[in-house]
């Protein structure tokens, strides 16, 4: 029993079919609990008022936006090294979700920034690197769209993902060099010193769990759709041949 058994599409379909309802349910429960708890049962911040509550959407979506790219990097590597189709399809399935998370983070940030910083947008390093991340997602998805042969498309997007990761990381530190920040530091970190207060911390954790579960559910669903699409195309090709 090794992890690579799940690279078999049939095995993957069975397992993901069993996980999917649980992941969706967990996402629904955790998001409801986290957001309702966060929105209605936490006090307002003494300086930011009720706008502080956007943190329950902004922080999880921003975390997911970055982590989804990392997941795509890992699955692209697995595709390049071991040539498991499920892996390539998972990367393809994850990209639009990542783009959506990036846009949610940017939009919620703008909504919060307008009353707090007095501006929708500032060329702050964090904001700028998110905009750049958004461009990388767009390019990645456009390349998938443009190539007809699915294996070539998987190969080329995987290479683009590897090279893009290096340049995305470079851009991240380049913009730090280029402009001073307006954005506050990390809201969450493992050393407790700079965390947000506990009142906000626990609903935020629940909400993050909800976003992770939501991503897992959407990603499995989209990968399953891709696999079914492949099967359909194979069947049609066989029928045309017969």
């Amino acid at each position, binding site marked *: 029993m090794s992890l690579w058994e799940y690279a078999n599409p049939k095995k993957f379909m069975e397992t993901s079919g069993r996980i999917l309802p649980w992941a969706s349910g967990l996402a629904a429960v955790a998001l409801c609990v986290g957001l309702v708890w966060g929105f209605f049962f936490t006090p307002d911040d003494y300086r930011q008022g009720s706008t502080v509550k956007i943190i329950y959407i902004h922080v999880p979506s921003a975390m997911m936006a970055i982590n989804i790219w990392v997941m795509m990097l890992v699955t692209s590597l697995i595709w390049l090294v071991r040539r498991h189709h499920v892996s390539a399809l998972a990367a393809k399935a994850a990209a639009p979700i990542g783009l959506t998370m990036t846009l949610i983070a940017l939009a919620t940030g703008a909504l919060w920034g307008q009353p707090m910083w007095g501006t929708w947008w500032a060329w702050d390093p964090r904001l700028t690197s998110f905009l750049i991340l958004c461009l990388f997602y767009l390019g990645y998805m456009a390349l998938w769209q443009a190539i007809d042969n699915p294996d*070539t498309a998987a190969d080329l997007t995987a290479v683009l993902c590897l090279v893009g990761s290096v340049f995305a990381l470079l851009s991240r530190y380049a913009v730090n060099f280029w402009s001073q920040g307006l954005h506050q530091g990390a809201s969450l970190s493992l050393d407790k010193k700079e965390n947000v207060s506990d009142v906000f911390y626990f609903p935020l954790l629940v909400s993050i769990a909800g976003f992770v579960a939501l991503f897992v559910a959407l990603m499995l669903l989209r990968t399953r759709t891709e696999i079914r699409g492949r099967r359909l195309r194979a069947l049609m090709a066989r029928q045309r041949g017969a």
Partner: protein
Amino acid sequence: MTALFWRDLRLALRAGGGFGLGLAFFFIVAVLVPLGVGPEPTTLARIAPGICWVAALLASLLSLDRLFALDQEDGSLDLLATAPLPLESVATAKTAAHWVTTGLPLTLASPVVAMLLNLPAAGYPWLVAALFLGTPALSAIGTFGAALTVGLKRGGLLLSLLVLPLYIPTLIFGAEVVRRGAVGMTATPPLILLAGITAGAIGLLPFASAAALRMNLR
């Protein structure tokens, strides 16, 4: 490899390739910007580093889609792939030829553009140095983008969508060098970082380009 380099160079020079085109584009962008933002010398001096670099990015983007596409159409790319020369060397030769036909002329012409944009005199050497060190990275990244999109019918637009985000670090450090140089601050740290990006891009990206070419030709 040298032969391939000279062949590409001759093709670009004689067959009406992108040689003069990129340079002319560089000039036109630099002329249009003052017409757009107004002739105030102080404003122009402040935005000159950025304009020079953005114009250089766009100019080097212009001739990228022909880099492999012409060779693919007439079949010489297949010959190159089966030749004893590894594709990594082919990619390097292509990058070098692209740089000599776009990056180098841009670097040499940049003082004229800087003059049009009223860049302070202290910035001139930094601008030339930054473009000289930075444009090879643009060519290497562009070769990678061209290798990714070589098989596509309308790869040009996609190519710019893929390549421009990859240009960002080069642009930031390159413009930062000129900006600091123009106001008399020390500009060596960004210049060293820029040179580092170029060294990394020249050294590593040909492998990625060759991998992409192999995938496209399979």
